[in-house]
């Protein structure tokens, strides 16, 4: 790689020096044990060696582009990191990405770690989400060819990346994407596409599955195969102010683990969880209408048996070949984002409406409704959300609204015997600009609920001294802790539930494209999501430092 970069630079130096770019992202955490809030039980908290209380990650990306060539390399460092397993510690160093691509007129060839997706990702998405320790790049090759200016075909093959190695199995695929406009005067355009992905299991995985399935009794035995195919037909239709994206994805007979299926053991006892072999499907539609001041979006998605992994024995967020778009509003406030639903790949019927309207230059509003159920009708998630924003020129801005949620914690967080979490969360935010450079932002939310931890009050004050400094102070207060919850901190002696304040103090320094952030944090356990993929993170207590830079 270095040779190629050097070669490219050498060649480029005579005529064209090319473009060099990159980025750095670093996190350093200091874990300060706090048994009261549950910040215990991980190596970073419990180790007697103080050096083990520090952990972090570093990603350094370098890109070089010259004469149609593009070289990318990324070094990844994990030291005592809790990203891979929020309850564990992971250390490792290596090349996280190495790729080269070259474009010749209509043809582009890529080798190495390749990120791409077909359609909305229902059958294939190679992507990265650092907060969730997901990096599903394809290690292999890809070819793209422009058949015409409006019709492009691409094909790829390789293995799915896993940390510094690869997951078992081979993935290959092909996609054809088009764009058609019906005359220069016509308001109608379509962007159809078709995709196909094949996943071939390796012999070790097949042997593992054979060893499991051979012990299934009678009718519960299933067939196994090496290959599994997924197909997708998708299209974006644009007509005047309307955009309609639709996608149908189908998956052939595939072996996957269904945690709700019953298996009979040789002892005669039936237990939950076994491998099944089923076909899968997803239908996804999103229709948007936009007119001056008005935006309406309606989304519908039906998912059945669409677990698609590089290795069917993998669970959680591991080995995912595809990506399911989330069907709820992506909230940003601390309490409105506290309960967020992960997409369900085996059984989900979801829809969402979103309406935004700008009454005038000062006043605008947003209303959102989402509803997610299993295919047999069990409520998973429901949210009503409304927000009003009033802008007084550039001087100040006031926004506020309310969110009402139902959240199936038993399913999303695998917490047995817990009731549906029902919340009502009013919120408000005030932004005041003293001068062009000095601003004050205050936000507050109150979540009323009788479930999980009980009710919360959150407030944050943020002072901005542009262009360099942002200071923040916030607190999340368990104002009415739930007596029946086993998660709520209790007095060690009286066993009474405690009203705990989880404070955060932080400062951010920005210089050009460099951003440095230092925060002292006490944080309750909660869900961390990225685009509908979520995981439960334990409580955190300590100091977080982050640095990011692009060049």
């Amino acid at each position, binding site marked *: 790689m270095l040779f190629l970069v050097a070669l490219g630079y050498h060649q480029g130096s005579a005529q064209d020096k090319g473009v060099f770019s990159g980025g750095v992202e670093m996190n350093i955490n200091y874990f300060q044990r706090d048994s009261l809030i549950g910040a215990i039980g991980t190596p970073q908290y419990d180790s007697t060696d103080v050096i083990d209380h520090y952990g972090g990650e570093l990603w350094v990306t370098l890109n070089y582009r010259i004469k149609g060539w593009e070289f990318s390399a990324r070094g990844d460092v994990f030291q005592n990191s809790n990203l891979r397993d929020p*309850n564990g510690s992971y250390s490792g160093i290596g090349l996280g990405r190495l790729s080269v691509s070259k474009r010749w007129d209509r043809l582009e060839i890529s080798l190495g770690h390749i990120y791409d997706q077909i359609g909305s990702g229902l059958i294939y998405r190679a992507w990265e989400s650092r907060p969730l320790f997901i990096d599903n790049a394809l290690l292999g090759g890809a070819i793209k060819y422009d*058949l*015409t200016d409006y019709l492009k075909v691409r094909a790829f093959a390789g293995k799915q990346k896993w940390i510094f190695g690869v997951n078992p199995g081979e993935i290959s695929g092909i996609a*054809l994407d*088009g764009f058609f406009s019906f005359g220069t005067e016509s308001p109608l355009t379509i962007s159809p596409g078709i995709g196909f992905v094949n996943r071939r299991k390796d012999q*070790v995985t097949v042997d593992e599955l054979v060893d*499991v399935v*051979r012990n299934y009794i009678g009718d519960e035995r299933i067939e196994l195969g090496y290959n599994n195919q997924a197909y997708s037909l998708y299209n974006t239709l644009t007509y005047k102010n309307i955009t309609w994206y639709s996608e149908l994805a189908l998956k052939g007979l595939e072996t996957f683990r269904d945690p709700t299926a019953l298996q009979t053991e040789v002892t005669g006892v039936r*237990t939950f969880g076994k491998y099944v072999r089923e076909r899968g499907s997803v239908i996804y539609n999103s229709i948007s209408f936009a007119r001056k001041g008005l935006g309406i979006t309606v989304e519908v998605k039906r998912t059945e048996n669409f677990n698609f992994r590089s290795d069917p024995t993998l669970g959680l967020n591991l080995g995912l070949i595809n990506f399911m778009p989330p069907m709820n509003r992506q909230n940003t406030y601390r309490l409105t984002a506290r309960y967020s639903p992960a997409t369900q790949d085996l059984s989900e019927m979801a829809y969402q409406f979103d309406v935004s309207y700008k009454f005038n230059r000062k006043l605008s509003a947003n209303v959102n409704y989402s509803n997610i159920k299993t295919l047999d009708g069990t409520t998973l998630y429901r949210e009503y959300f409304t927000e009003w924003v009033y802008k007084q020129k550039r001087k100040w801005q006031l926004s506020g609204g309310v969110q009402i949620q139902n959240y199936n914690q038993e399913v999303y967080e695998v917490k047995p015997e817990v009731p549906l979490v029902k919340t009502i969360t009013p919120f408000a935010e005030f932004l005041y600009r003293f001068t062009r450079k000095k601003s004050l932002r205050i936000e507050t939310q109150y979540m009323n609920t009788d479930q999980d931890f009980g009710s919360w009050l959150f407030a944050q004050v943020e002072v901005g001294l542009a262009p360099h400094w942002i200071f923040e102070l916030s607190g999340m207060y368990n104002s009415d802790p739930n007596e029946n919850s086993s998660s709520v901190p209790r007095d060690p002696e009286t066993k009474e539930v405690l009203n705990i304040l989880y404070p955060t103090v932080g400062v951010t320094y920005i210089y050009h494209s460099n951003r440095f952030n230092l925060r002292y944090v006490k944080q309750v356990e909660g869900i961390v999501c990225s685009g509908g993929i979520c995981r439960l993170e334990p409580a955190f207590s300590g100091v977080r430092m982050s640095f990011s830079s692009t060049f």
Partner: protein
Amino acid sequence: MKSIISFTLIIVVILFSGCREYPIEIPPPKEVISNRVVLIEELTGVSCPNCPAGAEKVEALLFDYPDNVVAVAVHGKFLSKPLDVSTYDFRNQEAEDLENSFKPWLGKPAAAINRVHFPDYDFQAVDDVDLWRSYVEQELEKDNELVLELSQNFDESTRELVITAKATPVITESGNYRIGVVITEGDIVDAQLDQGMILPAYVHNHVFRTMLTDIEGDPFTTSWTQNEPIEQQFTFTVPTSEDGLWNTNHLEVVAFISRVDGDRNEVMQAAKVKVEG
């Protein structure tokens, strides 16, 4: 335009014509004949909704390999807190230490099988219950290196339990070898979470009660000479308990010999014996 349509049609036909794949033949269940006895240390808990399924996998292994598998159910800390309706609390510091010694693992149930870190699995404690059987069978297929005989003598009046472990090697080898001795208790009827339900009268078996050695085992010998047995005795006074635990009719002694090799401490042979007066 014609070429585009033709090309598109060809692609569609190719993609949707489908690939017929002949299924893999699934053989009947394995029946491994072995002189080895494999130790399963199952990380479990009464608040763990998936753990009954794990426990049942262990029972299925004991059903198929009654003389070749011994089990210890470790109720450490994670998901082990008693339920509101629980009568007993199976947690203790030794169980927690033992559970922690297998970290990292991603969840429960998980099981350490002969304390081997299998090369095709990320962690020593395997949290995919479907793989337990194949790993147990892999261990059973290995050559047996020693015979471990366990005997006990229990005095009901003093509640003193004398355990004798006799290890007879079939190899000659030098190294660092350890012995571990665990007391387990079975037939304990108490609540257990199972998915979204509480099973009020669940039968807990192989529950880790105490360990008479260090959790890594105590030093046993530094060399084996073929057919020359080595014996060690352990004495333990079984506690009396008003809550019904430490029932001497339901106690079992589990012992194992392990080979220390760098970071590894893999079990060579295990054995069990019921406590009987």
